[in-house]
C-alpha cells in the first residue's frame, strides 16, 4: 500500500494515477476484511474502487491527462508532514497494542453492543444495530451529507435545458455506442441480476454485511452501466432527472419521518421501540424503513452525481462541436 501511495505521488499521467488510487481503495478494502470489518470493506470496495474511480476518470477525461512539472514547495510540505507525522508517532507510544482485548475501547461502551444488541434489537449484524439504532442519528446525518453532496453537485454542474444541441449529442452518443455490441448485450442481461442483488443486499443487511448504503451504490451502479453503454439520453428516458431528485429528497424525508413518528408515539427522536407494540418488532420495523430511506437517497444521489458529470461532458462536447 505504501508503494501504491508513493507511486501516486510520483507518476504524472493522471489516468494511471486514478487507476492506482482505485487499486489503493481495493487493497484497503481487503485490509478491512482482514480486520473483521466486513461491512466497511464492502463499502470501501464499492466507493473507493468503484464510484470515486469512475468520477475521477470522468473528470480526467474532461480536464486533460498530464500533470505539469514543478511540484512546488516540496520542502515546506515535507517539513509540515514531518512535524505532523512525528507528532502522531509520538502519540502511538502510549497506545494499547494492536489487537489487545483489554484496551479501553473494548471494555467500556462496546460490550453492550456486542452482548446485548441481540436481545435489545434482535439483529445478528451488530454493525447494523449500532448504525441504525444506537447511533441512528449519525446515520441520519450521513444521509444528509450525501444529500448535500448531491445538491451541491447539481448546483455546480447542472446546465439549463438546451434542446438545440440535442441532435449533436445524439450523434456523439451513436458514434460511441455502436461499437460495443457484445458488451451491450452482455451488460443488458446482467443488469436485472445486479438490481436483484441490490435488493438482496438492502434487505439482508440485518443478517450479513450490507444495508441501505451498499445497496444504494450497487443499484446506482447498474443504472450507471446502462447509461454508459446506451448513452445518457437513453438512460434519461428511463429515469428523468426531476424524478431522481425527488427520490433523493424522499429518502431523507422517509428517514426523518420515522423519527417524527416515534416522537408522536411518545418516544424520543428515532426511538424505534415505540413504533410497534413489541419493542423488538418496533426496532425491526424502524431499521427496515430507515435502511430503505438510506438506500433511496444514496442510489438517487449517485445517479444525480453521475448524470451531472456526464451531462456536463456532453454539454462541453456539444459546445466544442458548435464552435468548430
Amino acid at each position, binding site marked *: 500500500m505504501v508503494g501504491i501511495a508513493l507511486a501516486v*505521488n510520483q507518476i504524472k499521467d*493522471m489516468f494511471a494515477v486514478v487507476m492506482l488510487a482505485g487499486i489503493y481503495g481495493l487493497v484497503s478494502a481487503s485490509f478491512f476484511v482482514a480486520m473483521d470489518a466486513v461491512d466497511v470493506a464492502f463499502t470501501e470496495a464499492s466507493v473507493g474502487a468503484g464510484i470515486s474511480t469512475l468520477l475521477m476518470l470522468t473528470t480526467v477525461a474532461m480536464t486533460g491527462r498530464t500533470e505539469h512539472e514543478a511540484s512546488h514547495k516540496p520542502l515546506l510540505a515535507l517539513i509540515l508532514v514531518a512535524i505532523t507525522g512525528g507528532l502522531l508517532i509520538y502519540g502511538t507510544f502510549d497506545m494499547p497494542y494492536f489487537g489487545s482485548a483489554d484496551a479501553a475501547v473494548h471494555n467500556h461502551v462496546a460490550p453492550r453492543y456486542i452482548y446485548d444488541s441481540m436481545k435489545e434489537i434482535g439483529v445478528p449484524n451488530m454493525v447494523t444495530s449500532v448504525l441504525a439504532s444506537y447511533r441512528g442519528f449519525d446515520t441520519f446525518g450521513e444521509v444528509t451529507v450525501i444529500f448535500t453532496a448531491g445538491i451541491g453537485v447539481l448546483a455546480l454542474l447542472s446546465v439549463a435545458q438546451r434542446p438545440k444541441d440535442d441532435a449533436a449529442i445524439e450523434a456523439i452518443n451513436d458514434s460511441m455506442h455502436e461499437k460495443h455490441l457484445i458488451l451491450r448485450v452482455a451488460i443488458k442481461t446482467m443488469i436485472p441480476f445486479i438490481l436483484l442483488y441490490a435488493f438482496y443486499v438492502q434487505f439482508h443487511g440485518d443478517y450479513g454485511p450490507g444495508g441501505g448504503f451498499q445497496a444504494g451504490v450497487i443499484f446506482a451502479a447498474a443504472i450507471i452501466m446502462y447509461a454508459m453503454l446506451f448513452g445518457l439520453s437513453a438512460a434519461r428516458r428511463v429515469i428523468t432527472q426531476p424524478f431522481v431528485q425527488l427520490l433523493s429528497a424522499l429518502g431523507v424525508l422517509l428517514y426523518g419521518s420515522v423519527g417524527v413518528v416515534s416522537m408522536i408515539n411518545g418516544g424520543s427522536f428515532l426511538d424505534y421501540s415505540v413504533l410497534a407494540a413489541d419493542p423488538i418488532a418496533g426496532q425491526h420495523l424502524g431499521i427496515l424503513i430507515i435502511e430503505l430511506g438510506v438506500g433511496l437517497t*444514496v442510489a438517487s444521489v449517485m445517479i444525480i452525481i453521475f448524470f451531472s458529470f456526464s451531462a456536463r461532458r456532453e454539454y462541453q462536447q456539444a459546445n466544442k462541436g458548435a464552435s468548430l
Partner: protein
Amino acid sequence: MTMILGLYNYWVVIVLMMIGFYIIIAHGHLIKKIIGLNIFQTSVFIFYISVGKVEGATAPIWQEGIILYSNPLPHVLILTAIVVGIATTALGLALIIRIKEAYGVIDEDEIQAMDNQAMVNQDKEHQ
C-alpha cells in the same frame, strides 16, 4: 521488541497518512490533491478499524457459539466517514470541472497567477 510489534500497524498507517498529506500540500494538480485527500482519509479509516480489532476475534455478526467479536463501533463510524469522504470527493471533482471551464487550467500555480493578473494593479493578496 513487543513495542515494535504491538505498534507496527499504527506506524504503517501513519506513513500512509503522511504520504497522502504530502500529496495534498505539495502537488499543484487539483485532481491529484483530491486523490491525496482520499489516501489521507482512507488511512485514517484504517487507523480506526485497527483500533477496533481484537486478536482472535471474528467479524461482529452474531453467530451461535462465538463469544469473541471485534468491536463494531469503529466500523459504524468509518462507514459514516467513508460516505462523507465520497461526498467530499464528488463535490471537489465537480468544482475542478467548473474551474477547468472557467480558467482553462487545473494547476494551482497557474490559477493563482491568473487571479493575481486580474487584480494586477494593487495586489496585496497572497496566501
